[in-house]
C-alpha cells in the first residue's frame, strides 16, 4: 500500500521500520532536512523535506494515491490539520497522533466530521498496557486472540522456575496441562522452538493457551501471584495520570510520587482517590519511607529513561513482584530488555503496534486473510490470526503430513468454542480460526505457511 507519514520522530521512525519490512511504499515528510536525509539513508523510502500541511508537499508525496496517511508530528493541532488536508486531497484513511485527552474525547465527531480515521494517544495506550499487566496476575504481558478465547503470555524464566532445563515435549507430561511455547527470546535472538528445545534460565518465553489452561499452568509452575493491591508510581507524566485513574477504578491503592509541587497539586486535584506525594522519586530513603518494600507493583514513569531503569532495578532488587519501567528512546529499549525488569514499555513502540494493526486491517480489506496481528518479542515475531475458508487447499490434512516452513508454528486453533493446542495429529478444518506464530516471514494468507 502507499503510505505517507508526516513527522518522523520516535514513533514515526518505529512505524517506518515496521511498514518498510512489510513491503509498503512509504513516503516520509519532515520539516528537518537532516531527519529526512537520515531516514532515506537507512530505509528504502521516499523522503521530502517540508511542512506536511503544505498542499504542494503533500502533492509531491503522492497523496492522491495514498491509501493511508499518518501524522505523527509533535503537535496535536498540526496532526489534525494534516489529516484533514490529506483527506480532502485524496488520502483514503488518515491516522493522527492526538495526545490531548480533550480532543480524544470527541473522537466520533473527529471521525465523522473531520474525516480522521484513527486517533492514537501513545500515553493512553501505554497506560492501558501497564494497567493490564498490573491487573493480570503472574504474566509479564498478556494479549488475546480469537475474541479473547486464546491468551498469549510472556514470562521470564527465573532460576527457581521448574521449567529450567526441561525440553518442550516433556512439559505436558510433567505439569499435566496443555500449553504451547511459541517463541523464546534468548540473548538478543529469537527462536521458534521445536519439541526438543530446552528452556534455560533467563529466557523470555511466550506461551499460548486458553484462559483456564493458562492459569492452571501458572499455578503448576509456581509463578502465580496474588493480584496487585498496592502500587507505587514514580513520575507524574500523562501516562501516570491515565494509569492511576484506571488502577483506582479497579480498586487498587495507588501512591504517586511527583517531583514538581505544581504538578503534584494538579494531579491531586484531578485524581482525588490517589495518594499523591511530592518528592524526588529517585531518592532511596523517600521510596523506603513511602513503603516501597510493601507494594505489589512498582512503575517508573519519569521523563528520564535512565532514571526509570535504575529505580526499577533497585525495586526489583528489594523484591517487588512486578516492576515496570518506561523507556522512550528506541535505542535504549533493546538494552533495557536484557535487564532484570519485568516489563519495559515504550510508548512509541506500543502506539506503532496499534497503528500497524490498523494498517493490517485496512490491507485485509483489500483481499488478505489476516484477521489480527500482534508483534511480539520486540516486533521480531508475528502472531497472526487467519480464518480458514473453503479455498484453503489443506483442509483435513494432519500437520504431520504438511511440510511447514521453518521458523513457523501453529500456536492454536479455535474451532467453535473449543481451543485446540495442536499436535501432529490435528488438522485444519473449514471455519477454523488458526493462529500462526512466525519469525521473519511475511504471512498474508494461510497458504503462506507452506513453503
Amino acid at each position: 500500500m502507499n503510505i505517507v507519514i508526516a513527522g518522523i520522530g520516535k514513533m514515526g521512525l518505529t512505524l517506518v521500520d515496521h511498514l518498510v519490512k512489510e513491503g509498503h511504499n512509504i513516503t516520509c515528510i519532515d520539516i528537518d532536512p537532516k531527519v529526512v536525509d537520515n531516514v532515506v539513508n537507512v530505509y528504502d523510502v521516499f523522503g521530502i523535506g517540508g511542512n506536511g500541511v503544505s498542499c504542494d508537499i503533500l502533492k509531491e508525496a503522492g497523496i492522491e494515491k495514498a491509501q493511508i496517511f499518518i501524522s505523527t508530528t509533535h503537535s496535536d493541532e498540526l496532526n489534525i490539520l494534516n489529516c484533514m488536508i490529506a483527506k480532502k486531497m485524496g488520502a483514503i484513511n488518515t491516522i493522527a497522533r492526538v495526545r490531548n485527552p480533550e480532543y480524544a474525547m470527541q473522537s466520533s465527531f473527529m471521525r465523522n466530521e473531520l474525516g480522521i480515521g484513527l486517533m492514537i494517544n501513545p500515553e493512553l495506550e501505554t497506560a492501558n498496557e501497564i494497567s493490564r499487566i498490573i491487573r493480570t496476575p503472574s504474566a509479564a504481558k498478556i494479549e488475546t486472540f480469537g475474541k479473547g478465547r486464546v491468551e498469549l503470555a510472556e514470562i521470564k524464566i527465573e532460576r527457581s522456575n521448574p521449567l529450567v532445563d526441561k525440553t518442550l515435549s516433556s512439559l505436558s507430561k510433567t505439569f499435566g496441562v496443555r500449553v504451547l511455547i511459541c517463541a523464546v527470546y534468548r540473548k538478543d535472538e529469537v527462536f521458534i522452538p521445536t519439541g526438543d528445545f530446552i528452556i534455560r534460565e533467563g529466557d523470555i518465553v511466550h506461551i499460548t493457551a486458553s484462559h483456564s489452561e493458562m492459569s492452571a499452568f501458572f499455578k503448576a509452575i509456581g509463578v502465580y501471584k496474588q493480584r496487585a493491591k498496592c502500587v507505587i508510581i514514580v513520575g507524574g507524566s500523562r501516562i501516570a495520570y491515565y494509569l492511576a485513574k484506571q488502577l483506582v477504578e479497579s480498586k487498587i491503592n495507588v501512591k504517586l510520587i511527583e517531583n514538581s509541587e505544581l504538578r503534584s497539586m494538579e494531579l491531586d486535584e484531578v485524581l482525588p482517590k490517589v495518594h499523591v506525594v511530592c518528592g524526588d522519586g529517585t531518592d532511596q530513603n523517600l521510596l523506603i519511607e513511602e513503603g516501597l518494600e510493601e507494594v505489589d507493583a512498582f512503575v517508573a514513569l519519569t521523563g528520564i529513561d535512565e532514571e526509570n531503569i535504575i529505580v526499577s532495578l533497585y525495586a526489583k532488587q528489594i523484591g517487588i513482584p512486578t516492576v515496570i519501567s518506561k523507556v522512550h528512546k528506541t535505542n535504549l529499549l533493546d538494552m533495557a530488555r536484557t535487564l532484570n525488569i519485568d516489563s519495559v514499555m515504550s510508548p512509541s513502540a506500543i502506539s506503532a503496534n496499534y497503528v500497524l494493526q490498523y494498517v493490517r486491517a485496512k490491507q485485509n480489506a483489500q483481499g488478505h486473510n489476516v484477521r489480527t496481528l500482534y508483534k511480539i518479542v520486540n516486533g521480531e515475531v508475528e502472531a497472526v490470526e487467519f480464518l480458514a475458508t473453503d479455498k484453503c487447499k489443506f483442509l483435513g490434512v494432519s500437520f504431520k503430513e504438511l511440510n511447514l516452513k521453518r521458523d513457523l508454528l501453529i500456536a492454536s486453533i479455535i474451532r467453535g468454542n473449543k481451543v485446540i493446542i495442536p499436535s501432529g495429529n490435528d488438522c485444519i478444518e473449514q471455519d477454523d480460526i488458526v493462529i500462526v506464530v512466525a519469525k521473519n516471514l511475511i504471512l498474508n494468507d494461510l497458504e503462506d505457511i507452506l513453503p
Partner: protein
Amino acid sequence: MNLKMVFYVLGVIMKVEAALMMLPALVSVIYKDNELLAFLIPAVLLFAIGFALSFRKPENNQLLAREGFIIVSLSWIVLSLFGSLPYVLSGEIPNFIDALFETVSGFTTTGASILTDIEALSHSTLFWRSFTNWIGGMGVLVFVLAFLPSSDTRYMYVMRAEVPGPVVGKLVSKIKVTARILYVIYIVMTVLLFVFLLLGGMPVFDSIVHAIATAGTGGFSIKNSSIAFYDSAYIDYVVSIFMVLFGINFNLFYFMIIGRVVTILKDEELKFYLGLILISILAVSLNIRSLYDGNILTAFRYASFQVTSIVSTSGFATADFTQWPFFSQFLIIILMLTGGCAGSTAGGIKIRRFLIFIKMGFVEIKKLINPRSVVQLKVDSKVQQDTLLSGIAAYFSIYVLIFSASTMIISLDAKSADTTLGSVLTCLSNVGPGFGAAGPSGNFSIFSSLSKFVLMVDMLVGRLELFPIILLFTPNTWRRV
C-alpha cells in the same frame, strides 16, 4: 566493514557480467567470426567465481556508507579486469594493458581508444566495445538493483555511489522501482535512437552499435573516422539531439511521462545546460565559418555535432576540433570540464555542481557588499544545505589535486603540453578525444604503460565521481574503528 557482504554483491555482479557477455557471443554466432570462445571462456570463469562468492548470503546483510563505496569501486575494477579478457583471448588486442585500457575506457563511457585501425576488428569485438559503453552508462549496480530479486532495503548507499551527480533523487519510494524506471527510460531511448539511425540509411549492425554507444555517452564508433564516415547531415543531427538528451537528468524524463511539466520548466540545471549548448554552438559556428568557405550552415552542422558530443562527454567526431581556432578549442575545454547534467549518463564535473559553484561565488560577492544581508544559495528556488555546498567545494579541490598529480606523471612521457593536459582532462571527464596527438584523429597508443595506467585510474575516478576510488585507497576505510 562487512566484507562478507561486499564479496557477496561482487559475486552477483560477476554473474551479471557473465550473462551480459552472452550478447557479444550471440553476435559472434550470427556473424560467424570464430570468436565465440573468447567470450565463452571469460563468461564461464566469471560465472564460476561469481557463483562461489554469492553461494550463500551472509547472515549480516547490512550495507552502510563505507560498504557502498567499496562495493562500487571494487565492482568496477573487477568488471574491467574480466571485461578485457575477450580482447586478449581473441588476439585483437594482445597486450593486456592495452586491452584493459580499452575496457576501462568502455565501461567508464570515455571512449578513448588505443586502437589504430578499428575497422580491422571482428563484429563481436566491436559490439562488446560499444556494449561496455551502454552497460557503464547507467551503471551495473543500478542494473542489479533494478532487475535482480533481493529483499534488502539498504542499497541506497550503493546507488548513491554509482549514479552521477551531487544528489540522488528517488522517483518513487522503493529504490528497486526507481532503478527499474531509470533503466526502462534508458532502454526505450536507445531503441528510439536505433530506429532513427536505421531510417537514416545506416546498416543494422552499425545502427545498433552506434545507438548503444551514444546512449551510454561513450563514443566508441566502429569506423576509424567515427560518425564522419557516413557523411550524412541527418545522421549528424539525430546523433547530436540524442547526445543532448542522454546528457539530461533522467528524472526529468520520468516527470515528463507522469505529466509534471512544471518541475521540468523550473529546473535550473536543464536551462543552464541547454543555454550553454546553444551559445557554444552559435559561437563556434561563427568562429569556424571561414574554415568551411564562409558556409554558415556547414559550419553550424559541424559545430553542433562537436559541441553536443563534447558536452554530453560522448566523444564521437565528425570534424577535428584540434584544427579549429583557439577560441573554439577553449570553449571545447570548458564543455569538457562541465559535462552533462547530474543523473544522466554523461560524465564531467556536472552542470549542477558548476551552477552551485558559480552561485557560491556570487553569494560571497553579495555578502561582501552588504555584510548584514541574508543571502542563501538557492537552486530550483530551494535553499541548498551547507553539507552539500562543502561537499561540492571538496569535490573541486580533490579534482584539482588529481588533475595535477596525473598530469605530473603523464608529463614524464615528454609529449607536448596540449597532448598531456588534454588527455588527462578528457579521461577525467570521460569524453574520449583529447588534444594534440590524442585528438579526435589520433589515439592513446602513443602513451607509455605507466601513463595508460594513470589514465585508466583517472577514467574510473571520473566516472564514479572521485570519492569511491579514492576511499578504496584511504587507510581509514579499512580501519576497524
